[in-house]
């Protein structure tokens, strides 16, 4: 008995061990080559510029950097950026929810066209978006002079900046919500109305909680873009100092004036915003993923 079991062991030991490998996995060499390339690329293209922004801003000490941030024009730019975001993000939030709702929950003609239209700001250059507003509201247009006669200045004023920003950040929330709401279908809503809930109660108690993480995620991205938008805003702003300059424009102006430290100080604020957005995004993805995964 002992002999035979020994013999068995022996035969196992004699068999050459071929390690089991996941059939979709690459060899270690390929794997590490790919990872190194990716990391090197990221370091070169993304990480180094980020470091450069901060180091340039702090080159003459943090006091100088701080001074250029609290300087009047910079503060005005920050204020305008905040105002624009505070107007544009809620508007796009309402629009995004409405559009996603109608696309995900109803069948109607022209739906495909509407989806394409929502994507337009993604596919068109922001500069074009700005120029469109010049055409619409400029001195040579039909609308511009009429609105002007009512005392409404659109171009080269805050409303123009807001409009251009809304245009550019239009798709973020809708795009985030459409697949989510399509995936969820109308079952929960039907359950709610069959229990006697009216439209508003259904939206507030059922639909909104179901989409809240996706919505927050969309708002976050929308906000980041609204604060960082350059192209479209640059065309319609007219660059009136302290009036129609947002932070990205302020950076460019300072840079063009060879005021590098100030330019990079303001830029580092934008970069910080981006970093905060990324962190929040990661946190949201975790929570959202957990929530989503637990559904089944």
């Amino acid at each position, binding site marked *: 008995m002992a002999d035979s079991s020994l013999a068995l062991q022996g035969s196992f030991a004699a068999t050459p061990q071929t390690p089991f490998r996941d059939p979709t996995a690459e060899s270690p060499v390929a794997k590490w080559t790919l990872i190194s390339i990716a990391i090197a690329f990221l370091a070169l293209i993304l990480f180094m510029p980020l470091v450069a922004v901060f180091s340039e801003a702090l080159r003459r000490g943090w006091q100088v950097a701080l001074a250029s941030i609290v300087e009047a024009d910079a503060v005005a730019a920050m204020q305008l950026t905040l105002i624009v975001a505070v107007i544009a993000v809620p508007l796009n939030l309402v629009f995004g929810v409405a559009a996603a709702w109608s696309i995900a929950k109803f069948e109607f003609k022209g739906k495909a066209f509407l989806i394409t239209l929502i994507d337009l700001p993604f596919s068109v250059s922001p500069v074009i978006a700005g120029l469109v507003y010049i055409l619409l509201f400029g001195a040579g247009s039909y609308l511009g002079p009429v609105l002007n006669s009512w005392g409404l200045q659109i171009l080269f004023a805050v409303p123009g900046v807001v409009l251009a920003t809304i245009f550019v950040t239009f798709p973020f929330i809708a795009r985030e919500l459409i697949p989510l709401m399509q995936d969820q279908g109308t079952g929960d809503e039907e359950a709610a109305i069959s*229990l006697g809930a009216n439209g508003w109660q259904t939206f507030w108690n059922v639909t909104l909680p179901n989409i809240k993480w996706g919505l927050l995620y969309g708002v976050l991205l929308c906000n980041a873009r609204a604060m960082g938008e350059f192209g479209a805003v640059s065309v319609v702003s007219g660059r009136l100092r302290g009036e129609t300059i947002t932070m990205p424009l302020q950076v460019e102006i300072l840079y063009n004036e060879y005021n590098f430290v100030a330019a990079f100080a303001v830029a580092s604020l934008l970069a910080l915003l981006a970093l905060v957005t990324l962190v929040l995004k990661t946190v949201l993805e975790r929570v959202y993923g957990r929530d989503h995964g637990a559904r089944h």
Partner: protein
Amino acid sequence: MDLRVNSIDKSFSGVAALDNVSLDIHSGELIALLGPSGSGKTTLLRLIAGLDFPTGGAIHFGNEDASAKSVQERNVGFVFQHYALFRHMTVADNIGFGLKVRPAATRPPKTEIRRRALELLDLVQLSGLENRYPNQLSGGQRQRVALARALAIEPRVLLLDEPFGALDAQVRRDLRRWLREIHDRTGHTTVFVTHDQEEALELADRVVVMSKGRIEQVGSADDIYDTPNSPFVYGFIGESSRLPVRVEDGQIWLEDRLLGLEAGHAPAGPAQLFFRPHDIEELEGCGGCIAGTVTTSRRVEAKRRVELAVGGPGHRIEIEVPAERSIPDGGRIAFRPNSWKLFRPIEARIGAKLP
């Protein structure tokens, strides 16, 4: 609450889903809508609920025409196949939802809502789970919560759309018995949709068999099984075999062979013979019988099911014989059905012998 469905039509962008459907449901009845997918059974249920609106016809709740009423006004309890529980609410909040969204004038106080929820939770035998979230429950438990939620609004009728469709076989059987008990205790007029004939026949007072947007037959389990009124119902409910035959001189013929079955008043001409595979009598010799060559046989539970090739073109039919009989492939078997039914090749029934 009596329910009357009156000549309902429903089409979805031009495609007819229901075609002139009428149905009377009596107060307190438990009704099954049974049919294959695409038969219109779920559409009918949703029209009764008010989740969809008919293209033509009317739906009455008691004496009141509910056709134009919204789902909220109809006050129906609806249970969905995939539960549709609100995943961000606890079990108790789910059950209380219908009371919470009532207008202030008729809304019970919070403590009362909670009390009702716990009471219903007790009814569906889930006491103690009130603070769980839906994703912490099993499928069967979720469906019980969904039923409790539907009952909380004191509905006039209870509508269930394939309530056990997403559950596994054992849980289905338990829940079936349990649903019957709940129904008997609460007395709600209940309509449920299913494609599972066993479920329909076992659970319902009356079964509505549907096919292609029409009602084929309405009746008790006995009616539906013993006197199916169309080839569809005969084929859809229970096992059945069919043979293309011919009626001549009051006798039934398969090609040139007499089957030994009296056709009665059936008119002469081609017909389809239906019988149940288990309800046959094997014969030794064959003067007037159905005879065939065994192509395959397999054990099915307590019986052995034998597939035969019959007649010149080798029509395939199935019969059941005792399990202890071993039958070699290629052997001959002769038999005669004890009860059977003749249908014209197109729909109408033309003759039968009933058990």
